[in-house]
């Protein structure tokens, strides 16, 4: 019975199965290094990789100045509101206005820090500082009071612009139409009312002055009913304008791509709250005689929505950072398990939440970007997508991410994803290079071994066909000559000696030729050649050879010489009574062989290992096989080998 030795697990040396590597390399994806086609990207827009500017950074001088100004403005406004004392709730309004000023300025600073190129930062700062002037509306000096109240008009328009132009800072036609309508409402409702009303009161519930308001210095005609009519027109107009704005925001949000929604969401949400509260409050107070008090539901809602409004911009930035963190985490996780360019691209799409995102690879030779199929990258006509290149430290571009234009507003995300993608692909390229060079090395080793084997066969043939035949011919001639000379002559004795020498020479030559390359191996295959090797061995050899049939020449040669080497090692180093067992058998897709002896053994690694071991490793390694050599003093030596044979 044959004891089955397992496939080498804990070998002295294991040469990995090359098919595993091949599987790794041979993916159905186009390798990302394939980028040599001569195609040119149509346009070059987009921006360079910027250093990631996440939170912690010392404030700049201008930021400090703005902060100081904001605190001063907030304090001044609060003091003014308290001093005026005509507001419905002077201390409440003072607190609210100070808070509003500070939140607007902080939102502006945060926005400016995160997106220095965007006008919203400056706009919010300016708006916040200017909002402190609303405090004038609660003073008793009639002209200043009126100015404070009337400032609500540009303030409202500024808020419309902030919301409607977000995030491009440009108004589209619908936005312009809504603002034009608001202007018309101003002209037909608000402006006439200003000249008719006895008193002007701030809109904010906390700031309303009611009976405490100073007389309106701008009143031209004292006609209460006319004033009320225009007030109604103004309120209805406002409600229409708010309704239109809300509709427009809803439509825009519904149409927006997913990355854009992520950006629009917080700003639109807080703006919508503000406009709904504003519309409900104004309609309620002016048209339906609802309570205008800050403690009424409408008043409370408006106060809250007003304070919350600037938080939308802060939330947009906070969400962007939070999203970057989550995205990076998932990206690192996902990219770790994806092994192809397509995989990386899939992760990028997922992380950017942009199903159309695409990677473009820089081809230095032709100085253009190509996609993973090697085609030039063309941006779509509608400008809904743009691209961002990622450059190495030395300024050389490596790749670009073609993405939804909205993601331009998400620079933290784009920079992080860009850097992570470059890292992943660089790693993959290094890995690919390594695999390529391992592959090349293995191929060249295989070639060397094949050349050596061919050379051996040639030498063996030459020896057999020329030298050996000549010696044989001479041997025949010598025998003929021996027949011619008389027996027991001196010449006969000499001829006999020559004949004996010649026989030894022939034996020697035969043995050398066989050692160089056994013709049986080429003619009959492994089992026959190993049987013959066993017969020639100087030690007893037990054979358990399965008929493995014929195999590729390089495999037969490698396995044969490996077994021979092991056999010779056993004979040479195994001690006087060594016996060897040589096995050859099949396992699925695996040719297995073992040469075991019961000799004296050796300590692997300690004793000078015979050069035979190196030869065995070289031979097997060249055909991608594995070999393990186990030995211990007194325990004999086991050589175990396995070669993957594709069916």
């Amino acid at each position, binding site marked *: *019975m*044959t004891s*089955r030795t397992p496939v080498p697990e804990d070998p002295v040396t294991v040469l990995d199965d090359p098919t595993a590597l091949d599987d790794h390399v041979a993916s159905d994806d186009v390798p990302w290094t394939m980028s040599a086609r001569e195609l040119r990207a149509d346009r070059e827009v987009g921006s360079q990789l910027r250093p990631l500017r996440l939170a912690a950074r010392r404030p700049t001088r201008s930021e400090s100045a703005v902060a100081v100004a904001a605190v001063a403005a907030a304090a001044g406004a609060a003091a003014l509101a308290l001093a005026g004392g005509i507001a419905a709730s002077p201390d409440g309004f003072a607190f609210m206005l100070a808070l509003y000023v500070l939140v607007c300025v902080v939102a502006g600073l945060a926005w400016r820090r995160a997106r220095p190129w965007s006008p919203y930062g400056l706009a919010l700062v300016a708006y916040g500082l200017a909002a402190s002037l609303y405090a004038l509306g609660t003073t008793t000096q009639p002209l200043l009071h009126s100015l404070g109240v009337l400032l609500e008009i540009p303030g409202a328009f500024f808020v419309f612009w902030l919301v409607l132009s977000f995030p491009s800072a440009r108004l589209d036609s619908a936005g312009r139409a809504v603002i034009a309508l608001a202007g018309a409402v101003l002209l037909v409702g608000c402006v006439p009312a200003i000249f008719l009303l006895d008193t002007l009161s701030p809109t904010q519930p906390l700031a309303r002055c009611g009976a405490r308001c100073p007389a309106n210095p701008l009143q031209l005609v004292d006609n209460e009913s006319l004033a009320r009519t225009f007030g109604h027109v103004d309120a209805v107009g406002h409600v229409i304008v708010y309704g239109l704005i809300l509709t427009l925001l809803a439509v825009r949000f519904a149409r927006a791509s997913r990355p854009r929604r992520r950006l629009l969401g917080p700003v639109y949400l807080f703006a919508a709250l503000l406009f709904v509260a504003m519309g409900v409050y104004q309609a309620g107070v002016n048209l339906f005689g609802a309570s205008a008090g800050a403690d009424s539901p409408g008043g409370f809602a408006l106060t809250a929505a007003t304070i919350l409004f600037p938080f939308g911009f802060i939330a947009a930035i906070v969400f962007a950072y939070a999203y970057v963190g989550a995205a990076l985490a998932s990206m690192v996780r996902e990219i770790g398990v994806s092994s192809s360019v397509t995989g990386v691209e899939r992760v990028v799409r997922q992380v950017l939440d942009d199903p159309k995102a695409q990677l473009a690879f820089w081809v230095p030779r032709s100085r253009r970007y190509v996609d993973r199929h090697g085609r030039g990258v063309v941006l779509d006509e509608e400008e809904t997508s743009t691209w961002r290149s990622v450059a190495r430290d030395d300024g050389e571009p490596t790749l670009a991410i073609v993405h939804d234009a909205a993601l331009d507003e998400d620079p933290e995300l784009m920079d992080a994803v860009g850097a992570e993608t470059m890292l992943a692909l660089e790693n993959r390229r290094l890995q690919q290079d390594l695999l390529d060079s391992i592959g090349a090395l293995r191929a060249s080793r295989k070639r060397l071994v094949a050349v050596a084997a061919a050379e051996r066969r040639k030498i063996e*043939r030459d020896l*057999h*066909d020329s030298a*050996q*035949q*000549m*010696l*044989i*011919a*001479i*041997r*025949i*001639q*010598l*025998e*003929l000559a021996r*027949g011619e000379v008389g027996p027991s002559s001196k010449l006969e004795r000499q001829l006999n000696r020559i004949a004996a020498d*010649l*026989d030894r020479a*022939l034996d020697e030559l*035969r043995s050398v030729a066989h050692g160089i390359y056994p*013709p*049986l191996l*080429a*003619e*009959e295959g492994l089992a*026959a050649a190993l*049987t*013959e090797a*066993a*017969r*020639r*061995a*100087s*030690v*007893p*050899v*037990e*054979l*358990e*050879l*399965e008929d493995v049939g014929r195999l590729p020449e390089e495999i037969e040669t490698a396995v044969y010489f490996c077994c021979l080497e092991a056999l010779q090692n056993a004979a040479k180093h195994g001690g006087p009574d060594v*016996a060897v*067992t040589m*096995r050859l*058998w*099949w*396992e699925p897709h695996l040719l297995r062989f073992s040469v075991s002896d019961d000799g004296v053994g050796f300590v692997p690694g300690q004793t000078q290992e015979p050069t035979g071991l190196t030869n065995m490793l070289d031979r097997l390694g060249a055909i991608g096989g594995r070999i393990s050599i186990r030995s211990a003093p007194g325990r004999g030596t086991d050589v175990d080998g396995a070669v993957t044979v594709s069916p």
Partner: protein
Amino acid sequence: MSKAEAGEAQPTRYRIVVAEDAYLVREGIRQVLAQEDEVEVAEFCSDLSSLLQAVDRHEPDVVVTDIRMPPSNTDEGIRAAATLRESRPEMGVVVISQYVSPHYAIKLFEDGSARRAYLLKEHVGHRNHLMGAIREVASGGSVVDPAVVEVLVESRTRAKNSPLAHLTPREREVLAGVAEGKSNAAIAKSLFLTKRAVEKNINSIFAKLDLADDTDVSRRVVASLLFLAETGTPFQGATSS
């Protein structure tokens, strides 16, 4: 001192075809056979196809062929012997080889050992060797070069638990003689024994080795050769263990 001289048979002239691709060796064989009155070489060939054509032309009694010849330079001689076994069972074939590997001798005898001989080329010059083989195969016998048998006996003796260990040195010599295709008389002569002593030895050997004795010399050759060539235990395939 051949059989012919001993008057056992009328001097027959064996018609022979020789195939050998190496010119010098071919010339050597030509000279060896030119000395023999018993043979008449109909044709010298230098490859497998010309050999088979020459056989068709001359219908020789015996073919002397190199083992390794064009076209493939592998084992054309053995293939020719197999072909002739089919087409001309009565024709003798002497394969001359540079290979001492028993593998080839065993392969030559695979489909029967009668009228087949396996000789090492370097022994061809010895007139008794080649002529002896020609006579043996012509008369239905078999010959294996002693050098080949020696390899087998040596490796078999070396093996662990070798059955040959139970044989006396004399018995081993007799077994080698049997494997070489010698008749009892020839063994007796080469070992300076009486024919009876050889027979006793052979009975003892075949009993010890558990082989069926066969009075037919050529069948005896195969049995003893295969016995000697056995290496190790037959392999138990992965499915059966």
